[in-house]
């Protein structure tokens, strides 16, 4: 019958069906995230319905609505943005399908709309980057000139990583962000923008890039200008993808804040519990760390992505 819906609907054989609405495949990080979810689902014996929203919230809403129509057992998704989910989540609740958020929260005041939120905290990542910088320059009195490569204008990680970083370094007036521009999270843009920075700002001490890829592009620009990345200009990035870790181990990057995409196994555990109706914590933080050059050398051989 149409009304039965929910947890017992499609899964006549007891197998759980999960609808997962991914943001897109806009970066290596995201791809690693997708792979992790897919593999974990396979291992956990969960049937996965996957859809790619190509970075558009409306597509994600459509996908979720179609999962409701298909009567999956549980819906998981990484919201493109925080706002605007109430309507469709209410529809899910009416259909008695539990929802798990991954990677990023929603700003709804009605917390009954989803069971739990699993993911990292972008503001905290920005703070971690800032803290390292404050410690690194703890003793010096000279002003520190920082340039910032932002992520895609308006995107949540860009906004939060910028805010967290600014919050920490704002305490000390010697830290000065002399230029800040978007590099769209890509290497090519990172390189292009950095070249322009290098021409218009002769003394740059620190580069803060919102992801590894822009940092890697910028390294090329710095080398092209005849400077030594990691020495003449200190570099902090976020993500810790393999290429970034390698550059860190090679001494070209000074510090990386990890943002782990490997949410799959945790997600599947939560999904099973939620479908069974067990209690789960409202917030599950992914295990993440930070890497210095030394730590990177050790971690590199076992990196999965």
């Amino acid at each position: 019958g149409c009304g039965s819906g929910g947890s017992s609907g499609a899964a006549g054989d007891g197998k759980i069906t999960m609808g997962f609405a991914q943001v897109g495949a806009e970066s290596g990080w995201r791809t690693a995230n997708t792979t992790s979810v897919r593999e974990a689902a396979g291992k956990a014996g969960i049937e996965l319905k996957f859809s790619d929203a190509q970075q558009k919230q409306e597509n994600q809403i459509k996908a979720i609505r179609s999962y409701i129509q298909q009567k999956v057992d549980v819906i998981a998704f990484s919201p493109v943005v925080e706002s605007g989910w109430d309507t469709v989540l209410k529809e899910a609740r009416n259909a008695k399908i539990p929802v798990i958020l991954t990677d990023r929260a929603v700003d709804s005041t009605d917390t009954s709309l989803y069971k739990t939120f699993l993911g990292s905290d972008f503001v905290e990542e920005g703070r971690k980057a800032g803290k390292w910088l404050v410690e690194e320059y703890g003793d010096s009195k000279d002003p520190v000139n920082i340039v910032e490569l932002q992520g895609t204008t308006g995107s949540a990680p860009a906004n939060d990583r910028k805010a967290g970083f600014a919050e920490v370094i704002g305490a000390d007036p010697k830290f000065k962000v002399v230029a800040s521009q978007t590099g769209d999270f890509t290497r090519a843009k990172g390189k292009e923008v950095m070249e322009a920075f290098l021409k218009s700002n002769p003394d740059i001490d620190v580069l803060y890039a919102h992801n590894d890829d822009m940092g890697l592009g910028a390294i090329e620009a710095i080398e092209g200008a005849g400077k030594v990345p990691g020495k003449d200009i200190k570099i902090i990035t976020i993500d810790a993808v393999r290429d970034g870790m390698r550059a860190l181990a090679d001494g070209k990057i000074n510090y990386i804040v990890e943002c782990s995409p490997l949410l799959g196994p945790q997600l599947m555990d939560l999904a099973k519990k939620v479908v069974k109706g067990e209690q789960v914590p409202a917030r599950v933080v992914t295990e993440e760390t930070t890497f210095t050059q030394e730590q990177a050398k050790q971690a590199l051989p076992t990196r999965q992505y």
Partner: protein
Amino acid sequence: MTTIPLTGGRQIPRKYLPVLVTAALFAAMFVAGGIRYEGFATGQIVLNVLIDNAFLLVVAVGMTFVILTGGIDLSVGSVVALSTMISASLVTGLGWPPLPVIALVLAAGAALGFAMGAIIHYFEIQPFIVTLAGMFLARGLCYTIGTDSVPITDETFTAFAQTRLDLVGEAWISPSVVIAVAVVLVAAYVLHYTRLGRNVYALGGSEQSALLMGLPVARTKIAVYTISGLCSALGGVLLSFYMLSGYGLHAVGMELDAIAAVVIGGTLLTGGSGYLLGTVLGVLVLGLIQTMISFEGTLSSWWTKIFIGLLLFAFIVLQRLGAVRRP
């Protein structure tokens, strides 16, 4: 000579052929989806496509006017985003009541369209470029208002967003669908039963002839861009109902969806030929393609894109063949 005989002796004018072929293919796609996916062949699927694409439909209606004159409007996606951003920041940020805000948003969209139309006509600059500048401008204004996504918690908005209008049985639609359908009907009336509408077709046929025939070319041209701006703003309002948020990154690339919908519906980009019904079908086809992909459920991100491309290809080629083959 200008009609093709169909069985039963009725004559269907040749000019309706592209639209008919599109309709037939849409039906075929629906049936194919029903055979392939469980739970697909229900009326609610089509209604969901409408619910999820009401804003696109409204935007595409405006785009149809522009394309019928032989122009193009690339600014629609950004104007949609700007409308959500203005609505959200005024309603949530400043606590304005919803109705004046919506009126203001519609006026702003129409004004931007009017300005672009005037530049296009009086300074004889190609629409592609003027509306591209308009696209940059509107998107830039979004970011200037704010880079974060702004939630809308206003009661009127939420009530509107979460109302379900029940139809027969389980089927339901959202109020936005009603608005979109109303817009389509009004626009179809304007195109077929008013001078403005006929001037739009004449302009698309030949601007020079329209001028020499003494038609109000300036007024018509500016009007279509104003209409498109207005429709985009209304689309933005519907999108803010749909998303309950304002955000500068909403509706990125929607101009291409709108253009694709219009063209799939059989309207010629060179202007002068096409019907609104085609546009409606175009939007439905795009929506149905997306629905099929989420029912497929196993495609990786890149296969999703390839699959969309292939479906689009198959559809367009079949449509071409259907429209050309008949003698």
